């Protein structure tokens, strides 16, 4: 449970450098580091459960390159690149297993 939510694990990843969600590749997993402020958009993202410390998986990109699909809190969300750029993620250190 804790592993999945990772809310308590936040500190462990702190020294890592966060990357933008939009630069993640299909199948990659990580932990949300934060959401950059941009009008009301960041609040919307936070409310959908994309809060710091939560596990996030980049599922895939749509056939025409935008939007992308991510999994957060057991739920698949489609997010446009513009919003994905606001989300910062600590990548999982382990080599990625593509499923």
């Amino acid at each position: 449970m804790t592993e999945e939510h990772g809310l308590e694990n936040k500190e462990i990843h702190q020294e890592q450098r966060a990357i933008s969600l939009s630069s993640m590749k299909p199948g990659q997993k990580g932990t949300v580091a934060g959401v950059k402020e941009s009008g009301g958009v960041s609040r919307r993202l936070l409310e959908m459960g994309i809060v710091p410390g939560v596990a996030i998986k980049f599922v895939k990109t749509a056939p025409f390159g935008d939007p992308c699909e991510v999994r957060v809190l057991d739920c698949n969300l489609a997010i446009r690149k513009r919003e994905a750029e606001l989300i910062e993620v600590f990548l999982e250190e382990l080599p990625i297993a593509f499923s």
Partner: protein
Amino acid sequence: MNTNMEPGRGIIVALAGNPNAGKTTLFNHLTGLRHKVGNYPGVTVEWRRGRWRAGSTEAQVVDLPGIYSLEAGSVDETIATDALKGNIGGLPPPDAVIVVVDSTNLERNLYLVTQLFELGRPIVVALTMIDLAEANGETIDTVRLSGFLKAPVVKVNASTGSGMEDLAAAVNSVAGSNPSFPVPVPENAESNGNALIFARYRFIANVVQESVRERGRDAHAVSDKIDGVLTHRVFGLIILLAVLLAVFQTIFSFAALPMDLLEKGFGSIGGLLRTALPEGMFADLMVDGIIAGVGSVLIFLPQIALLFLFISILEDSGYMARAAFILDKLMGGVGLHGKAFLPLISSFACAIPGIMATRTIEDTRDRIATIMIAPFMSCSARLPVYTLMIGAFFAAYPAFGFISVGAVMMLSMYLLGIVVAIVVAFVLKRTVLKAPPPPFIMEMPPYRMPDPRTVIQNIIERSWLFVKRAGTVILAISIVLWALAYFPRSEAGPARYSDPAAAAKETTAIGDAASATLQTEKGEAASSIENSYAGMLGRAIEPVIEPLGFDWKIGIALIASFAAREVLVSTLSIIYNVGGDADESSESLLAAIRNAKRDDGSPAWTPLTAFTLMVFFVLAMQCMSTVAVVRRETNSWRWPLFMVAYMTLLAYAGALLTYQGGRLLGFG
């Protein structure tokens, strides 16, 4: 305590929950078919309420819009918050709130629950999709969950009906009470707006960890496999095309049979009334005005029912979100939502179901932009007009190889509509509907079997709304248009016809072998429409339409076709004395149009005139049913009037450009 215990009305129960959580299914189960659909005052959001026997209590259930949060400021969220606070006129604050929570997605669904507590209304949590959660290997301890939330938690299954007694008991036990507030408020909540969001999610993480056992199996395994194909780079596109084609094929062709039957049915009702009623104005009003006018709209019912069958299945199964996911990039280019695709495609059959289908688009501006451009898709009512014009003037042209000029013309009309729609959407989203683009965050719910009951109720609801709302407006306009073409009526009849011999000669000249009596009747019809108010209007607008190359007779047909595009064909038949029942492929009508003369003896039609008329029909808002539906869907007269105004202007400008441009290039 704030109860609404009035005799006969019972308690008010609001139904809240995330989209896709099974709220509609539960609502339908609780209220059966005894519910009413309305609009919240001044907005496009619909509300539904119905009666529910909650144990010994009579309850009124109000279905709130599906929302993820109470504070992000969309119309749906504002409405839900207002309804819960009792700020909506005619809707007392609820005595209890049932929050529908999807068990397979507890964390995100519980977020709304934690927010709802802050409104101070007593809450009952209804857990749906329990069977799916259990299949995923999850066991939810409702007693523990209830302890943490300090509110009753009930497992329900709307398709089997289990848990309904428990739900009723829980609602009765909390109704009117003061709820306790379970979420610890962080100290910095005042200074940091996001701290409260973090606190809620931290609370939820703790609650879920303590009350859910044995998780870990991948709940998404099946959905992910399906998605591997359905949103695949190549197969996804092919399947999407196949699905759209199937929808298209069905509403275009399979609906044709019931539509034909309805048309024949209205025809025979008209015929029966004609013989049953004494000849005169009343019979004419009933048959030519009401039956013909309302009938011409009600024949679209099979298309609407079929389209909503598809929409319900696509929505409930989760495929609609995938289609929007695939197409969002294309639609987003002109500022539209990915979900605008299906309504626009449907509009090729008929803009009415297309506009009704835009309700799947949550953002109001996106939705209105889609509604505003839907009528540019060449609908089936334009086909008779294109067919008539192409048949009269372009059929004789040689074909390039296997492609005929007629087919190219037809295709270019469809393309013109699409191009104009794109441009208009682009402009609207940057002017009238300008707003910071709403963040695009769309849930892709796991694939699920659609609930047949919800699908059927959705079809019935949409069909009935169409019949009821559109029907009343259309009835009124039908009567007005009929009267315009009917009055003033001369009692003298055929005697008024200025030159019956000339009319007979013209009829013979175009090779119509009709009997003499028939000729007189047709002459009478043509004469009365020429002398009617519609005829006067036709003459009155002649100076305006002259630059488009249209004479006053075409003007009459144009005015009549503002009711419905296909009316052009029957009006032209009446004006050119071919008889009102001629259709677009009738040889006598084609000949009559080719040979029609202006008052000065020059030909009334040239190929350029015909082409100009087609361009006008692509762009003009000539469909009272669409106007009535836009009025209903946007819940104001502002948008339908704006639509009529800008489309008419655009049509005039387009036709003017075509005709004058064509003349400069030496055509016509």
